[in-house]
């Protein structure tokens, strides 16, 4: 663990640098080879609004309309999942909490599928994010009600409540999909949406995810001290002047909005919210002043590199992004469970 504030700041700077390198790599990577000079010139051209003659229109369109939104969505979705995991682990005082484990992600998925099934998504691009937000919020508040007792969440109850709600959400999604099969247009939309991932994402998706997650992150920064204090327990937080009820409610709303936005754009991508905050807490310690920015970059790095890994090594096959994150995250989750069992014995 890093101890001095300077080394922590340096580490966060390092994360930011790594993030920029990865973002550039991701833009360079794709079925069509474009060298780095061309890419840089196209990005520059976009800023000054002037395209040099030797660059072709289709090259510009690949970078600006295909790869750039993909990279931006990957970084914001990854960042939001990691941040939400951090907030939930802090609020539940439990390192095993995360959006996917607590059934929040599947709740958001159910909301989105409902919006598609009943045709709300045809009226407005905001219907899916709105319903995802409602689904995520309902799931989280149910799990929270069941599992928390005076601000302390029992590990077993919390995980079981999450499992139950997840199962219910997944069953409801299957039910809607089954019912919709008679109307192939709707069924196709649901199947396409549930596959998730970053393929075919456009600037429309960017404009859904970007404002919500940016404003969510800025609001979370205001809660850096209450989040630290909540880690000590409800009574401690109250006794040093935190309005626990209000703080909890606001944090729940912010994190639900962020999960809803990212799930409605990229689908359920599991375990980033569990693994990233946990590793960063081991390195930086529990103080949220450092963890919040670190999770922002760490989550973006993780999702970008998972996507990069897929495009580099599995070009031909269409493996969903969630497979990679779950493949790495689920063993880590089991490792945490085993370690906790050892500690208890």
């Amino acid at each position, binding site marked *: 663990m890093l101890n001095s504030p300077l080394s922590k700041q340096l580490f966060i700077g390092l994360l930011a640098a790594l993030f920029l390198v990865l973002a550039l790599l991701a833009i360079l990577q794709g079925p069509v080879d474009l060298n780095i000079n061309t890419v840089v010139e196209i990005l520059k051209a976009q800023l000054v609004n002037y395209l040099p003659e030797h660059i072709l229109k289709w090259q510009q369109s690949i970078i600006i309309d295909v790869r750039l939104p993909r990279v931006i969505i990957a970084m914001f979705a990854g960042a939001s999942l990691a941040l939400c995991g951090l907030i939930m682990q802090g609020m539940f005082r439990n390192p095993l909490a995360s959006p996917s484990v607590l059934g929040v992600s599947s709740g958001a998925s159910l909301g989105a599928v409902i919006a598609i099934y009943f045709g709300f998504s045809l009226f407005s691009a905001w219907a899916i994010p709105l319903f995802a937000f409602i689904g995520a919020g309902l799931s989280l508040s149910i799990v929270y009600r069941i599992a928390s007792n005076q601000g302390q969440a029992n590990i077993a109850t919390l995980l079981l409540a999450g499992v139950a709600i997840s199962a219910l959400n997944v069953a409801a999604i299957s039910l809607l999909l089954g019912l919709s099969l008679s109307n192939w247009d709707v069924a196709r939309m649901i199947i396409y949406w549930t596959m998730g991932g970053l393929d075919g994402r456009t600037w429309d998706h960017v404009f859904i995810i970007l404002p919500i997650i940016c404003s969510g992150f800025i609001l979370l920064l*205001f809660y850096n001290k209450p989040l630290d204090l909540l880690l*000590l327990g409800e009574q401690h937080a109250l006794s040093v002047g935190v309005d626990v009820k209000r703080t909890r409610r606001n944090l729940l709303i912010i994190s639900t909005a962020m999960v809803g936005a990212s799930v409605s754009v990229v689908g359920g991508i599991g375990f980033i919210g569990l693994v990233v905050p946990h590793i960063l807490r081991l390195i930086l310690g529990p103080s949220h002043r450092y963890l919040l920015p670190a999770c922002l970059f760490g989550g973006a790095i993780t999702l970008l590199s998972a996507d990069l890994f897929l495009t580099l090594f599995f070009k031909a096959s269409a493996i969903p992004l969630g497979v990679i994150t779950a493949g790495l995250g689920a063993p880590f989750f089991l490792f945490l469970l085993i370690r906790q069992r050892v500690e208890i014995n």
Partner: protein
Amino acid sequence: MILKKSPLLPQGVKPALLSTQDLCFAYDSNTQLSNINITCYSGEFIGLIGANGAGKSTLLKLLLGLLPVNKGSIEVNGQTLKKLKRREIAKQIAFVPQSFDLPFAFTVQEIVMMGRNPYLGPFQLATNNDQSIVKEVLSITDTVHLQDRKVNQLSGGEKQRVIIARALAQQCKCILLDEPIASLDICHQFETLDLIQSLTKQGKLAITAIHDLNLAARYCSRLILLGKDQQGDICIVADGSPVKVLSQKNLKDCFNIRADIIHQQQSIQLHNITPIARS
């Protein structure tokens, strides 16, 4: 502002620091606190005693504003508690909770600095003044040598001192403690009570829930005994000096025990404590 005389200290015009007027509270229809009237002054070390379930923790939570008052009111430093925001309450009343388990690795210094939270904005860093207050309370509680240690690696006694240091960093005139010595060994029990006593001698008001009647009699300047009245409601059975409160009758009625009461200097000790067989 209500000026009442303390049952012990005839200070006359000295204003009450913390007082309740006809306080009533109920979790459900069965158990309830009814008509609690307490007036506390600075410099008092008040022990809150009573059998299990007699409402000691509940009363402390009410005094902190953690539970909603059904009837009556609480005043702290002349202001109505209900009208104060949590941050304002945290500048008036500090609280030392009963349990302190923390799976997260904050350093002792960070924990104690959290006591300055009511005075700092969301992005404000600790000022020199905050730093020197933290340094001072670390030395008062004899935890200077622990300041860079991780709090999840400390022993029970060390943790208790750290959490008292955090409460002191709030610089409040009132400190409420919920059984601060329940999980400590006998030596640390004495050390902790010595510390609280020395704080009250400097003019702070300490109210502590406490189970050990002998230690309560030895350290506290005043005891408040909670028990049940004929209707089964929780009320104050006795309020005053240990000599007055720890009588044979009160011990029998509230704790169901018999004991020899030995007078020592200005205090008393209980010997040969035996339970009374329930008929």
